[in-house]
């Protein structure tokens, strides 16, 4: 009986590591060649672990803003790697996994040095060293962009005293071409009822606050950030992927919403019965309509938006009627007797029957 217990315990112990990984949703055969890998003989596959093991979805904005790489501190000023800026850029092309190519399930992604030894191939032929790993990550893209491979682009040569770990050098040699956003793109299609689709690019980007990556997906940075950039930064223009891009916000039912429109026929907010004036005309759509992709009618009472905004900090100039000193002393309700956001009633103080005129403003009698 005791023997049986021992055998059972041994079996459980030997199986434990297997279970551990299975819990993480990994198939043993992804890394091991034998059925029962043990600590003594892990029988790992010859060609390292697979690169794309990930179940933890990384998010661009969760990572650190700046990462300081100071391995060569004796020679160079530490490299100040602008992590968040890169994370946002790479969201368009492959996402975080482009660099964080190995993230075991249910764990944080390991740091580069956990797998890539500082000694390089001298330590292990099979694994690229830390130097190679860093440089491949950076230069893989940077070299594509401008062909620049000078050390000093990222490594500021050290002069004089050793810095106390504080990074000052910035990898900011941005001689990448600035993106010139197109104002209007007119697509010619084969759709008989309306072959022309005018697309107001800047309007979409600025007014609707769309990120580049909302439309430009799985595209390398170099597609836009190169001198003499390609004329089609969306890649091969296919009917399917173009439609899918628009359908993210626009409905599928009404083809004439896009097809056959005139290029000058821009959306006019007045058509909704709420012409935008003064301050409102300068707002981005999302300021009122929230983060929803599809804009729906809002409650038109002012307090539906301005509920929080009437307090002492409210800047009356934003409504297009800057208050003079006298009126600035009053409380909101003294004039807006009919409710916040409603027309002011001057009769509370002025008995000459005057009506407030925005063009004339205050203090004109």
């Amino acid at each position, binding site marked *: 009986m005791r023997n049986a217990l021992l055998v059972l315990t041994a079996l459980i112990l030997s199986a434990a590591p297997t279970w551990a990984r299975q819990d993480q949703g990994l198939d043993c055969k992804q890394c091991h060649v034998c059925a029962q890998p043990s600590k003594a003989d892990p029988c790992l596959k010859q060609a390292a672990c697979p690169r794309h093991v990930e179940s933890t979805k990384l998010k661009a904005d969760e990572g650190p803003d700046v990462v300081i790489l100071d391995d060569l501190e004796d020679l160079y000023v530490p490299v100040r790697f602008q992590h968040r800026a890169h994370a946002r850029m790479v969201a368009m092309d492959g996402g975080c996994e482009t660099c964080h190519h190995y993230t075991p399930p249910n764990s944080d992604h390991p740091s580069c040095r956990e797998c890539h030894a500082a000694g390089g191939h001298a330590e292990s032929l*099979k694994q690229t060293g830390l130097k*190679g790993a860093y440089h491949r990550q950076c230069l893989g893209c940077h070299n594509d962009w401008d062909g620049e*491979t000078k050390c000093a682009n990222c490594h500021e040569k050290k002069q004089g005293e050793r810095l106390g770990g504080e990074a000052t050098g910035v990898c900011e040699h941005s001689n990448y071409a600035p993106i010139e956003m197109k104002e209007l793109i007119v697509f010619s299609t084969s759709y008989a009822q309306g072959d022309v689709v005018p697309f107001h690019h800047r309007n979409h980007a600025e007014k609707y606050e769309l990120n580049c990556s909302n439309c430009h997906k799985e595209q390398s940075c170099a597609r836009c950030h190169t001198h003499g950039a390609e004329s089609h930064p969306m890649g091969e223009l296919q009917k399917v992927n173009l439609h899918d891009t628009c359908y993210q916000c626009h409905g599928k039912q009404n083809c004439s919403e896009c097809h056959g429109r005139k290029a000058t026929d821009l959306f006019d907010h007045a058509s909704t019965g709420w012409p935008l004036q003064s301050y409102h005309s300068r707002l981005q759509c999302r300021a009122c309509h929230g983060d929803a992709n599809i804009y729906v009618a809002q409650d038109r009472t002012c307090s539906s938006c301005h509920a929080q905004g009437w307090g002492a900090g409210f800047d009356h100039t934003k409504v297009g009627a800057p208050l003079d000193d006298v009126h600035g002393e009053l409380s909101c309700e003294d004039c807006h007797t009919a409710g916040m956001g409603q027309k002011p009633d001057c009769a509370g103080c002025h008995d000459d029957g005057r009506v407030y005129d925005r063009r004339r403003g205050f203090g004109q009698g």
Partner: protein
Amino acid sequence: MDRRDFLKTVGAVGVGIAAADASASTAVHAPPDAFGVLVDTTACIGCRKCEWACNQVNELPVQPLEEFEDKAVFAAMRRPDAGNFTVVNQWPRQEHEGNVWAKVQCLHCNDPACASACLVSALEKQPNGAVKYDPWRCMGCRYCMVACPFQIPAYQYADALSPEVRKCTFCVERISAGERPGCVEICPVECLIYGKREELLSLAHERIGAYPDRYLDHVYGEHEVGGTSWLYIAGQPFPSLGFPELGEQSPARITENIQHGIFRRFIAPVALYATLAQVMWLGSRKDEVAAAAHKAEQHGEEHHE
């Protein structure tokens, strides 16, 4: 010897040469402990730091780093010369916009044609894999330059008094001291991997197997010209990276087989001299017969008179 015997002899000599040919063309293996370098051209970024490091280590004329940051040199394909033992060339990337780069230097053949062509053994394959050049033996015939299938050895033509044949040394001093070659040491992306050739070969095949989309299933230098110490893996066909398409046999095997075949067991020279002797003997006999006939004729005439 009659005509029949003569043909027999010639035939036997021919068979002998052919047999010698077959026995001499056995496959050449790298020295068992040979080192090598695996070049992963898919990772190379064309930074030319290897060129700079090479010039530093070998005390070559061009030294400042700035000279190697100039990418204008990529406009034309370059070959190593007497002052630059390695050069990086740029090639258009296939199936993608962009470029790929490939470092060129002596591949340190397992069966070096240069060493075979050398009359004075100034070039020799070392057990550590390097094809080493000895300027004290060299007589400057430059047969090595003609023999090399990769056109690597260069000559110091401008040096009037003590010109040398110049090529990658495989940093023999460094690797003998347990260090890595200069170019390997500096490569920022570690696309040059230094190690035992056998291990590099299995590593190369592992990588190809693990990332079939990234690599072509071909290790250049595994079989080319009998194998080379430097090995290359790439994502596109090697001719598109400036590598010549070569057979599995070293050019040295062809020339050596002919040379050694002819002189094998001294059969051909003996046969040649035997044939010449036969011809001479036949010739002199013909003269003798003719002389006898002439004499008999004269005698007859005399008798007739």
